């Protein structure tokens, strides 16, 4: 354990033809992404309080919580709740209320809830209050989407500068497919979509790009090294050579996120599950999506760019595939 590695992630001289599965990979990805987009519209995301507005209060009752009594006291104050439920232990209760029409009304509701709780079970303590007004939640949502959009744009530009445009397009198309799947995951799991989740998706974008850069980097290197190898073989070779890196880098982030999902507490576990899903999707898309897209985009162009002088043989060889 202290000197030599005990295991290899990937055997040396792996020779697997990923590009044979390119249509299957793209088809599966397209179906999943389309399904995700459908899920985005119906039933839609469960928006967190950041983006939807509203009130969440976590309270601790002195004895075991009497949910019925709390509900009755709340409706006695004329409040319509979205949910009153226990979580964790017997005396912890979460109360959710809809966003009010005005900011000031939201504040009135918060103090009414406190009054109702005091009436239902005296000595109840409010451990957490999140009250977000409608205008703030709209702004937070707009800013969150802006962060996502600008990140994708920046990554596109960066990869464009560092690689040929085909790589940039391939990477960003793959990233969009990855992000839609992560959105679908959120729609299915009903995890709250909030600012922290935008952070998770941005991180997925960052890591997914890492993987793509590693594979693309090798392709760029191999394009210079094997001037006549058909692009399809060259892509397979590049993926085989870098599979250890792709899996290794993803596994470490996966291992780092796993304890967060298991012991991170309510706020972070949703974030971490989204990360874990995104890492799996991002890793597989590096191999089965990003590379085939490059194959489709780059069959002619990349060869000619790489070898302007005697372009003909390379192009015809690649064109056969």
């Amino acid at each position, binding site marked *: 354990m202290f000197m030599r*590695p005990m*295991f290899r992630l990937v055997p040396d001289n792996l020779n697997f033809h990923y590009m044979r599965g390119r249509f299957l990979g793209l088809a599966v990805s397209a179906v999943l992404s389309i399904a995700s987009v459908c899920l985005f519209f119906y039933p839609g995301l469960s928006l967190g309080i950041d983006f939807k507005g509203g009130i969440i209060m976590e309270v601790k009752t002195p004895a075991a919580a009497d949910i019925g009594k709390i509900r009755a006291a709340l409706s006695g104050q004329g409040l319509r709740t979205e949910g009153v439920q226990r979580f964790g232990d017997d005396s912890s209760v979460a109360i959710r209320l809809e966003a009010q029409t005005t900011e000031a009304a939201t504040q009135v509701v918060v103090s009414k809830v406190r009054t109702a709780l005091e009436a239902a079970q005296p000595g109840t303590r409010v451990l957490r209050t999140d009250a977000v007004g409608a205008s703030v939640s709209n702004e937070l949502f707009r800013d969150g989407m802006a962060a996502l959009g600008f990140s994708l744009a920046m990554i596109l530009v960066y990869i464009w500068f560092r690689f040929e445009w085909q790589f940039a397009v391939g990477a960003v198309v793959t990233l969009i497919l990855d992000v839609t799947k992560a959105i679908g995951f959120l729609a299915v799991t009903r995890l709250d979509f909030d600012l922290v989740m935008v952070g998770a998706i*941005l*991180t997925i974008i960052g890591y997914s790009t890492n993987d793509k850069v590693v594979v693309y980097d090798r392709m760029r290197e191999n394009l210079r090294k094997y001037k006549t190898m058909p692009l399809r073989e060259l892509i397979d070779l590049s993926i085989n050579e870098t599979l250890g890196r792709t899996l290794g*880098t993803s596994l*470490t982030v996966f*291992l780092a996120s796993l*304890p*967060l999902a298991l012991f991170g507490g309510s706020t972070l576990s949703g974030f971490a599950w989204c990360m874990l899903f995104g890492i799996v999707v991002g890793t597989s898309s590096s191999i089965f999506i990003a590379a085939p897209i490059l194959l489709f985009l780059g069959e002619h162009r990349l060869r000619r760019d790489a070898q302007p002088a005697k372009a003909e043989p390379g192009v015809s060889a690649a064109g056969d595939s």
Partner: protein
Amino acid sequence: MMYFSRLKTWTVLGVCLAGLLLCLPNLFAPPTNWMPWRTIHLGLDLRGGSYLLLEVDMTTVMKERLDSLGDNARQTLRRAGITRFVVSVQQAQQRLLVRINDADKQAAAMTAQRELAAATVPGQRPDLLFDTQDDGQITITLSPVALKERAAAAVAQSIEIVRRRVDETGVSEPIIARQGDARIIVQLPGIEDPNRIKQLLGKTARMTFRLTDETANMTGAPPPGVDFLPMEGKGGQKIAVRRRVEVDGANLTDARAGQNSQNGEWVVNFTFDSLGTRRFAEISRANVGHPFAIVLDDKVISAPVIREPITGGRGQISGSFTAASATDLSVLLRAGALPAPLTVVEERSVGPELGADAIRAGAIALAVGFVLVMVFMAVFYGLFGWFANVALLANLILMAAILSLLEATLTLPGMAGILLTLGMAVDANILINERIREEVRNGRSPLNAMEVGFQRAFSTIIDSNATAFLAHVMLFAFGAGPVRGFAVTITVGIVTSIFTATMLARLFMVRWYASTRPSVLPV
């Protein structure tokens, strides 16, 4: 790549040592005051406390400006001897319409109105735009630039008043800052229930002393220049109060809650400044035997009858006060009036025990994640994996050092960011180790393989980290609240991890190679 000069070696080790030293302030209290003692701050979601986002009501600011402009316009016209005119305020268009019904007094009216602009504070930009029409209508519009300046001034003044009010409540280390055009962030560490502070901040607390109109008929509409205002604590009973403000609360120098020595009632004692004293003396002398009203935010808190001229500049407000409400009123009066009402648009309060739970959960996840990543590196990369693990530890220390230097705020998502950074930091080592392994397979000598491995992996490391870095800079730029803490820890972690993975881990390898001279690499 594989040669480290003595200077370079010591620089790398020196950076790590400096990082370690910079972390120390987080563990100890500062020994002296003069030493720079920068630490990481815990966010409110971890230490417990309240976060309030307040919005300054700009329409009120505009309305007050227009109303006072209208009053001034009427006064100037009367002074100019013009009696037949109509002044109307059009709030939506932010303008004032003046119609003169005496055709021959048009020019005089215009000159009189010009005085309005001249009468504004010297040095201030003229904020009125004049426009005359043939039918004798003068339009006075507030200029957009001036409106903007006025709004900015209102927010700045509000921040000052909010700070004074919060300071009066004795909250330790509050943070009060402007956000955007019309918002104010108030962070109150350790405050679990911000109700009292919200109540204090929710009042404009504009106090005015005005005369009452005893002749007004309370059943009809209020006569011009008079308002019917509700009496505080008298079940909706109203009293006719003249609109003209005789003395303003801004002329107070002090206000203290106290008890009346005769009946033990709670009262607020106040002191006027010299201008207020003089004005109050004049008014009280001229109105002995009549009541005057003390009005706070359009409610009459008290309307005593003036028994004798009050010339000492001291007074007492008695109403239906309790100890708490008398104290609150004195706080509000001391701090001064807000230029416009504030609305709480976002509130997040966390109790200290939830924060402690979050820290515990985060710490456990961090420890388990750290161990998992280290075991992974050891199992799959052997000795070079251990080098990466030591570099990882150094990375954690350097991150803490930079976050301390920046006096960054550690939030719950920030802790997640640290954990993710751990997973990402070793990625660089994986890229390097895999490359070295590949070069060994290609038949290179150990030293040569290490050299080429580092060299070739480097651009990949930069490319892959640059994209993640850019994504999180965007998150920092657009995100708000705790999620910015996440963006900060990740971006700092990316920078430090590049250093530890490519410099420190390489230094270990070079030293190890120099001392053992192995014929095969353990890859």
